[in-house]
């Protein structure tokens, strides 16, 4: 037999985009090196978090490359293919463990801990192995695992926000448990290895549609993937979702009305028609989740604001009240942007600019309506919810700050611009990700910034509003009518 071809080398040669995605989590390790240079003053939590990012990034890179290959039936019958995969993971874990041990012994911030070097290194290696194994399992079992590294930023950000100030003493207590870390690592490692070695996982990878990282910028591929996934879902589960039949009929009627009337209706009528059409939820379960989830978030985060404000060193006061708004914007705004796109295509070129404005305004109207509804929920919660006693603390419901209804004005044009640029037919997912980033950006600027910063944020938004219809018109004309 000739020398075994390394899957990872094939990958690095052919799939630079996946290599790039590996660096998204791996980049999070940069603070580690910066902080490590600061010696004993370095933030130990961030160093440990960065090590974890490195483990997750490596696991993601290897497991994703393997999953892409396992998705093809060709590899299923290659004898020793899965053994080769296991070997690669063992090598990667061994290198990571070696790096961890060296750093644990060398870095002054770790040396300052009261934990002895051997238990410390064991615990850290255990922690790395646990993260590595769980990431590998997540990649192989989660259909949307392609997006994991791009969402890792938020996980790290939230972890830093909540636990960034954990004292070295607390961390030392956690790391002084080598037996527990070792046992959990052996358990997780064995679980991952066992899953990887079995043909069942390979079979599942062949059967389950998978979107490779390199296809994330290709609308046609994403559309194909979603169709395959829907087909696969239907095949696996023949049970109808409750309410789908009725909603399907309502939607079919609306679509028929829309198709029949679009030639005779004016632009405004068209915009209103599309607005109504897109307001009928396609999946009642999601609509129900929004209906129940938003009030629940309003209540929980209103109390959390009170808890946060009472802390000696509160984290971003006033920030959490904005989360229900963000959740609604992610879902509703992305969906409406997508569905309003045909507006320009149905009309003559001279009307496309007006169509762009109307489409954008209808999206904005939906977001503002959502904001208004959440605001009313907050008012009701503020009026009716009692003061809670948790231990020795008293928690009162806290209203979100008054800037929040302004958020859609700043947030919507960013997403619309990205949407115009990418024209992601059939896929609102990238939109939602972009939307969340722009939301955080403006949210923080309006919440934490000085008057000048807030003014700049609003200025940027106004500029984007003015630019957007032109960009949109140019894109529609160039990509769809040419």
């Amino acid at each position: 037999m000739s020398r075994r071809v390394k899957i990872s080398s094939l990958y690095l040669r052919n799939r630079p985009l996946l290599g790039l995605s590996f660096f998204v989590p791996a980049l999070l390790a940069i603070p580690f090196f910066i902080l490590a240079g600061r010696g004993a003053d370095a933030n130990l939590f961030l160093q440990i978090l960065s090590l974890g990012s490195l483990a997750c990034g490596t696991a993601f890179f290897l497991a994703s490359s393997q999953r892409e290959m396992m998705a093809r039936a060709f590899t299923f019958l290659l004898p020793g293919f899965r053994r080769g995969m296991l070997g690669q993971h063992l090598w990667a874990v061994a290198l990571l463990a070696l790096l961890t041990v060296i750093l644990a012994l060398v870095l002054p911030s770790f040396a300052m801990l009261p934990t002895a070097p051997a238990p410390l290194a064991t615990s850290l290696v255990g922690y790395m192995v646990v993260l590595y194994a769980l990431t590998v399992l997540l990649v192989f079992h989660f259909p949307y695992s392609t997006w994991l590294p791009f969402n890792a930023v938020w996980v790290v950000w939230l972890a830093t926000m909540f636990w960034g100030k954990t004292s070295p003493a607390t961390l030392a207590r956690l790391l002084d448990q080598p037996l527990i870390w070792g046992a959990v690592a052996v358990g997780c490692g064995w679980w991952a290895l066992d899953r990887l070695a079995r043909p069942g996982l390979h079979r599942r990878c062949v059967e389950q549609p998978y979107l490779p990282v390199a296809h994330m910028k290709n609308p046609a591929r994403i559309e194909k993937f979603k169709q395959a996934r829907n087909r696969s879902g239907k095949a696996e589960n023949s049970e109808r979702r409750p309410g789908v039949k009725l909603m399907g009929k309502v939607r079919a009627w609306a679509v028929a009305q829309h198709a029949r009337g679009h030639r005779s209706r004016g632009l405004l009528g068209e915009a209103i028609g599309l607005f109504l059409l897109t307001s009928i939820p396609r999946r009642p379960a999601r609509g129900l989740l929004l209906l129940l989830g938003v009030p629940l978030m309003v209540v929980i985060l209103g109390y959390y604001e009170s808890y946060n404000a009472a802390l000696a060193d509160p984290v971003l006061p006033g920030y959490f009240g904005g989360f229900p708004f963000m959740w609604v914007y992610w879902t509703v705004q992305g969906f409406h942007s997508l569905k309003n796109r045909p507006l320009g295509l149905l009309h003559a070129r001279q009307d496309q600019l007006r169509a762009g404005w109307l489409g954008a305004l209808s999206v904005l109207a939906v977001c503002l309506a959502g904001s208004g509804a959440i605001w009313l929920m907050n008012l009701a919660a503020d009026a009716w919810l009692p003061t809670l006693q948790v231990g020795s603390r008293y928690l009162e419901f806290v209203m979100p700050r008054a800037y929040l209804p302004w958020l859609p004005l700043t947030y919507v044009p960013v997403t619309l611009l990205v949407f115009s640029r990418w024209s992601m037919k059939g896929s609102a997912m990238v939109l939602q990700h972009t939307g969340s980033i722009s939301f955080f950006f403006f949210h923080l600027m309006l919440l934490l910034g000085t008057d000048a910063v807030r003014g700049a944020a609003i200025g940027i938004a106004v500029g984007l509003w003015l630019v957007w219809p032109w960009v949109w018109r140019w894109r529609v004309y160039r990509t769809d009518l040419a």
Partner: protein
Amino acid sequence: MTTRTEPIISVRNLDKDYGATRALGGVTLNILPGQVVGLLGPNGSGKTTLLKHIVGLLRPTRGHVLTCGSEALELGGEQMAGIGYVSQDSELVDWLTVGETVDLARSHHPTWDPELETKLMETFALERGKKVGGLSLGQKQRLGIVVGVCHRPQLLLLDEPAASLDPVVRQEFLDLLIDLIQDGERTILISSHILTDVEKVVDQVLIMDEGTVHCFQPLDTLREEYHRITLTALDGALPAEIRFTGQKHLARDESGAVVTVHNPDARLVREEAEALGCRVGMRHLDFEEIYRLVVTGK
């Protein structure tokens, strides 16, 4: 020819459901080493699903599949090394080059035949530097054949391997198959809609429809069993009722009739025809006619 009687493929009461759709229902069959079986049936009859179960790519809803003596779901490396599978849609990795795909397959198969590889790469005019994703369907199918057969597997499963090949390459592929069959030890299961090709290489025929096995027997026996009788009325008109022993299908007009019969006795047929007052002609059905008869009853 081998004298082993233990089947290389054994399927027992195999059912496969996709949600509410039944793809396979109660399939039971044994394939012996050295047999070359043509797997036939209309689209959606369950041929690909059956092949995928045999290589362990699908989990049965009910029933068992034994391949090379092991549960197909748990095939080990040794068994896999002896199996070649060329799938219908050439499920290769798009972003690899042709050369990398072949290298990957070669490096995993201890029995790889480099001479056969060189010969096939030349015959199929495959360029090593080209990306698989950029190949046409026919070229992908050629590459699928290269990586599926160059390790000279003992069990070769071909799922419509020639569907996208042009006539010249198809003929070359058939020559290759005949070459692989020569040693008599190799078991081949070939699914195809091109009956003229299947007829040239197989010795057993397995016809499926709607997820069930309609017929599984040697091709020669099948040919022997079905006859077409042509009746011509001697006095200008056929009797109202025409009935022959083993009659499967009847097509008639005023003065003549064509009757398809199963396992006819030539002497009995002549007697029955004489009793009807008809002149009789008799011939074997060709393969395509047999297939149509088994699947549609006509």
